[in-house]
């Protein structure tokens, strides 16, 4: 190569190498989609009493809906048994959940969780950290058949819960979540959750956030 062509050739080399990087196509997609809205709690918290309900009001069986950024409209659904105990001006909640089939959102699949306890502050807020939780593949509506394993932190607000009448049972509360999915894909996740009381055995509508946006119907 004649010497005079060498400098421009060397200058062009980094450009050539840069063009060859497949990561460029990945980043290009991120740029194209970064204006899309990110998931959040999904609207204002419901207009509740803004006072912490009593233990008796909270205790009961609920439908728990967990919606993540992987596909917000296809949540994982559980029944959730909540037992509340008054602890001074706070509440102690003991919770047991049972995953439900993604196909009908009613049939239990897999094992019930072990009871876990969390503390709700006098202001009604709570944080629940669940690590290494495996959800059976039969409950996975996004990738049916594939079990998931995740660490998730739930941030709920019980003081703004919907209550049936003045002193009736809690009907609905909600919150947001963050976490990390370890399987089947490794991915940070964000999302929302809702907890709706099952009254007289009748399952409530499956809503994914505080704004009560409906989930997609099951397959």
């Amino acid at each position, binding site marked *: 190569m004649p010497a005079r062509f060498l400098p421009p050739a060397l200058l062009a080399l980094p450009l050539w190498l840069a063009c060859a990087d497949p990561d460029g196509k990945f980043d290009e997609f991120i740029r194209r*989609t970064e204006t899309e809205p990110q998931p959040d709690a999904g609207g204002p918290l419901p207009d509740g009493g803004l006072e912490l309900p009593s233990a008796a009001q909270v205790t009961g069986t609920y439908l728990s809906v967990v919606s993540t950024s992987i596909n917000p409209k296809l949540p994982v659904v559980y029944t959730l048994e909540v037992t509340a105990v008054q602890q001074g001006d706070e509440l102690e909640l003991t919770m047991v959940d049972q995953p439900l089939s993604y196909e009908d959102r009613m049939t239990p699949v897999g094992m019930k969780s072990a009871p876990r306890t969390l503390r709700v502050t006098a202001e009604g807020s709570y944080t629940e950290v669940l690590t290494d939780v495996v959800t059976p593949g039969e409950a996975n509506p996004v990738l049916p058949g594939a079990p998931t394993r995740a660490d998730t932190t739930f941030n709920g607000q019980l003081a703004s819960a919907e209550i049936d009448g003045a002193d009736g049972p809690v009907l609905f509360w909600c919150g947001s979540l963050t976490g990390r999915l370890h399987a089947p894909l490794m*991915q940070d996740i964000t999302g929302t959750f809702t907890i709706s009381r099952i009254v007289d055995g009748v399952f409530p509508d499956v809503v994914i956030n505080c704004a009560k946006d409906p989930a997609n119907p099951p397959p």
Partner: protein
Amino acid sequence: MTMNHSRFAPALALALLVALSMSATRARAAGFDTARFGSEHGHAAGSNPFAVYYNPAALTGTRRIHLAVDLSLLSHGAYYDRTETTTPPPADAVGANTGETKAIDVAPLPSLAASFRFGDFALGAGAYAPVSGQQRWQGNDDFRGNTMYPGARDGTARWHLIHGDILLAQATLAGAYHIRPARLSLGVGVSSNLMRMRIVRALAPSLDDDVSLEQRVRIEGASVVGSFSAGFMVEPLEGKLWLAASYQSPPGFYREMHLDGTVRTSLGGTVAENDSTIHQYWPDVLRWAARARPSERYELRLFGDYTRWSRLERQCVTKRSHKCDVDERGAEKSGTSLVNNQIRDWNDSFGVRAGGSYYPTARSEVFLGLGYDSNAVPDATLDPTILDGHKLSAALGGRMQLLDSFGLLASYTHIQQLERDITGKSKLDDPDIASLSRLPSGGGRYSQWFGYFALVGELTFD
């Protein structure tokens, strides 16, 4: 075997590998099996330093000091018409998953080798990229600026490959000995192999091709491993007939290759990058050749190879350093370390080439060759990541001895893959396959061609 375990990575070899990899990764759409260096004289009975790669025993046929540099320029064209989709797109995204796309590119692919013969011994060294390619499928302009389905702009091949490259760069040291009474040469070689893979493709959390859930994943991994080769060459008719065969072990010898890297995913508005390992078995190769020189004016050649691609049953991605432990359905037997398992189930393949040279003068040569390469990739697992099919090839070239110690060869080889239509035959999305081993359908029509412009300079001293 990983870089830490490699026993065959001398400093010089690694330096050559690095230099070579920088060149080879520039090869866009350069195909897959690119072991064509030496042009029609690149075979198991060839008398040039590229014998280091094709058959170390043939080093005894080189000159006392022999250097060869191959400056191939590769052009490649690929065509894919995706005729079926696993999940039909909505009405406002018709054409997002089906239709035609192409990949066209040109790339340099240098190789070099040298040999030194003293008495009945010969030593050689070389650096080359027997497998190298980069493929970037064209996008779909119909979806340019579409904010509802922003992924569709990357074309109909995107569920398997948007842009990717593969490189197997090899640096070899070899030695040979000629047993004069038996007119037999024996040779062995050891190689350091740098293997690297990178792909970017579309991904839906549902592992189908649902455009409403479309995201991206980038998988990359690299490893340096050793391999060996051995061969023989016999000369039944002295100066007139040479018969040769060689064996090249798989990179990593016979153990599973582990390419450490990362998986980068974009899902639900967040990007994550995690350490990962690609698990695979690479093939070994058996080569053979017959070369006849009935007169000073003519040479005839018949040579080929048999490649055990059946070793490539899967390319499995796990979390870093975890085992790929999957059953026949591709389901993980235990644990949750599997990220993705692409079922390959390739078949052994073979190639055969026949050709000849005419020497108008003692310092000039014209040659031609015809060849056939069989198909390694079954209909069930073919996808636009790596194309293959039945291939026909033709080569035409010439060589001039410009100086007593310098000769120059120029040639063009065209390889045409016959069109394949596997509509309705893809099993990648078979519901019986476990979820993390499933991909969207690869159904459709495929074809490709390669053009190799070779310029080989040889410097010799006797």
